[in-house]
């Protein structure tokens, strides 16, 4: 070891011993930061895990508020813009035998119906949901829905004349809309449910014609609904299929965006369905939840009047499903069409297949 001292460089403010100390500090702080498993915690009920496909910007303040009010730690996992809802639904399906989530809060209802059918959810009837109409509650108590968002066509009123606006969704197969229409990836989120709803209303043949028409018309695919609106505001396209909240957010930031509520008549006009699709958020308890009582408290909170009111007041502007609250807030679901959500959910997989094979071919 005698000769080694010769090669030690002149001392500076840092040296290699400090480097080792830094490394040790990194390791220690990491170890200290790692929590033990909930089973080791004395108060195991004081946390709840929620899988949430509602946009982070809207959901996080609500969950933070719940944490503050109840003192229950909320571990929230959100979905990517690209994999909206579908990613988390698949995650819940794969975790069927050892569920990691306690609560499922979806920005739509079709994925929740799929989960209910697959036996992923367990019954819980929140006490705060008594004034929610039966149409928005599962008969067996597997899910509760609230806070509607409409499927709309957004356009720029400065660029588009009123006479150019489509009257129904099926009009987008018309050549006058060639290269001018965009929508989010129809394998995910509310667009997925929208396509499944149209399939359940129109039947397979009409839907194939619709998809082929859209493809022929060179429709543009966006990563999500908010991206679709960005495509509109950037002038990439003239019309986008999106949700009401994305249009409202765009308006609030000063963009020139307006929306219409097209009818869901079939392309051949044989099936008349006036009004557009309004999709509620949905909340459910996951079967085998590790923190059932905390999950019940969170569900009670999420489906309460307070949250519906908050969602309506937010940029998302979800229309309440409670008739009394709607009247009180003077909220209207414009052009609301009362479709059968279960029928749409039943054809989700068939719709996905059509989308992949025909529309995205």
């Amino acid at each position, binding site marked *: *070891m005698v000769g*080694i001292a010769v090669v030690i*460089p002149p001392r500076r403010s840092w*040296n290699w011993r400090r480097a*080792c100390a830094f490394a040790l500090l990194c390791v220690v702080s990491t170890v200290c*930061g790692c929590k033990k498993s909930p089973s080791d915690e004395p108060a195991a009920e004081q946390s709840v895990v929620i899988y949430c496909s509602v946009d982070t910007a809207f959901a996080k303040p609500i969950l933070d508020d719940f944490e503050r009010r109840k003192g229950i730690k909320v571990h929230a996992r*959100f979905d990517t813009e690209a994999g909206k809802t579908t990613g988390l639904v698949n995650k819940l399906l794969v975790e069927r035998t050892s569920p990691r989530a306690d609560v499922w809060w979806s920005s739509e209802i079709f994925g929740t119906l799929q989960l209910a059918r697959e036996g992923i959810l367990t019954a819980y009837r929140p006490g705060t949901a008594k004034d929610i109409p039966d149409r928005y509650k599962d008969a067996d108590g597997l899910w509760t829905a609230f806070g509607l968002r409409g499927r709309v066509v957004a356009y720029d009123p400065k660029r588009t004349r009123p006479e150019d606006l489509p009257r129904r969704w099926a009009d987008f197969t018309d050549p006058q809309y060639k290269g001018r229409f965009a929508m989010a990836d129809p394998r995910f989120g509310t667009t997925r449910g929208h396509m499944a709803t149209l399939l359940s209303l129109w039947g397979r043949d009409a839907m194939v014609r619709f998809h082929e028409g859209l493809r022929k018309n060179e429709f543009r695919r966006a990563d999500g609904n908010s991206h679709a609106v*960005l495509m509109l*505001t950037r002038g990439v396209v003239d019309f986008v299929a999106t949700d009401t909240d994305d249009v409202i957010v765009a308006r609030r*930031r000063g963009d020139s965006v307006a929306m219409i509520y097209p009818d869901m008549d079939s392309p051949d006009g044989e099936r008349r369905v006036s009004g557009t699709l309004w999709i509620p958020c949905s909340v459910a308890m996951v079967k085998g939840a590790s923190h059932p009582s905390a999950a019940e408290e969170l569900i009670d909170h999420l489906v309460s009047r307070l949250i519906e009111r908050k969602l309506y007041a937010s940029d998302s502007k979800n229309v309440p499903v409670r008739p009394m609250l709607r009247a009180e807030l003077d909220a209207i679901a414009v052009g609301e069409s009362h479709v059968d959500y279960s029928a749409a959910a039943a054809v989700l997989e068939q719709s996905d297949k059509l989308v992949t094979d025909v529309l995205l071919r």
Partner: protein
Amino acid sequence: MLSIAVRLTRYAGWFALLASSGVIVVTIVWQSIDGFGAVDMPTARLRRLFVNTIWMSACATVMALGLAIPAAFALVQARREWQRQCLLVLTIIPLMTMPSVFAYAWLLLATSSHPLIQQLTRLVGWNSPGAEPFHAAWVLATWLWPIPALIMAVSFKHIGAATYRLACVDASAVRAFFFGALPVMRAPLIAACAIVFILAAIDSTVPPLMLSFDVWAVEMVAQAGMARHDARASAHLLLMEWPMLVMLALFVLSAMPGIRQMAAWADDVGAGDTGLNPKTASWVWGVALILVAAVTVFPIVVFVTTMASGRYPPAESFQRAFDAVRSQGSSTLIVMLAAAACALAVSLTVVDGPGWPRPLRIAGVIAVGLVLTTAVLPPPLIGTALISFYADENISPSDRWNLYENTPTVWVAAMLARFVFIPVCIMRLLNRRVPQDVVDQARADGASRIQSLACARLPMLWRSWLAGAMLVACLTLSEVVASELVQPPQWGGGSLAVQVDGFMHYGRHNQTIAMGMMMMAPAVPAAVLMLSLVGLPDRRRIIRAARDKKAL
């Protein structure tokens, strides 16, 4: 005592390497043996994605080169040390910044309602139909240009300077640089281009923000979400990825001659010519500096001006941004530190020497192979493979070993798999720079293998060792896709980058702008610190001091 610490760190490094890159490779291979499943996507669409990705990445590479050449020229022609240091800080900052920040700044510019900006964007055709892939390529270039710039600057010192001086005899400085120095540096240049191409091709955060959706990386993120219910998820993704992976492998191979050449410079400790040409007009250097500075500080300028005209006052915006990301901050910081610590350990495992046993040297080569393999894998595949392994009940059935749910282990493993190649390559290359006679003397004086590593090699490597780990920490802060996929359900508040990226999809908003500035802020001190750690003059001085003492 010290040699015990080094030995233990090396063991920890092997463990971390196997728990990250090892697990990923084994899982993918294991699941693939069982079959790949069926790809439920039409071939025509896959082909379109493939072509779009190549097109976008190639454009990004050309544009990055266009930005890098003036930057490299300014770097090598800086007349004073402070000029060079300033330029180096400006060059390093983009690499340490989240790419979405650049994309968001350009998005804000493109959607600005200011008449002058609108006129300008119309003039350059920024918002013209079909230009989205170019936008994505341009933003990727503004993020990745430092890689070719730094490689070119280093190459110039070793092989370009002599040619440049000769060419300067009868040509202008700029002409001599372009037509004299650049051609002799083609091998390192090809390597730099290959690295930029690979990074552009696997990025899935910038294209969506620039509204360019039909590219491979973005589709793979979606596919990772859909493949979650598949028992062979990573094999399924591999089947969809293989054309892209083959192409990336070809790019790695094309980069090898340049990398070998750069590795050879590590042996040549005395080399390095500034190539400074006193005839170079200062305005040429000034123009290059302005260009580099403009690209680097562009997001800040856009953020500040947009925020000033926003709905909320800046102070309130920062408060709201801070409130929104508070819970993510602590967990992200822990993962950053853990990833840096593991990167230090892993990079120490690859340090060996001529006198080391053959099995250890072979293991070092395997370790480098593992980290390079996972470095080119797309983040969705990394995340999916790790989740498949760590969340599989057959492998981790009890709560005691449930590393996925309650600890950041899998998250750290994902970050290691993505970024540990940086400190590993640095240590591997710089290890060759340590004078062998110094190590031989230590061995002759009775030092063991580990003692000579601890007392002879590490004192000359620790600065680069720390700098590499710091780079891993910075990149961990910016990582989105793998972090999102592997976020532990019951630990911490999630990833800061994922949260900020999620907000950016809503377009112009003061709170999001504040978040973007918060994500960019750490890059500046990190770049300064990194330069203070790896400043070339310091290292050369140390090595020369060691040689002089040895000579005495």
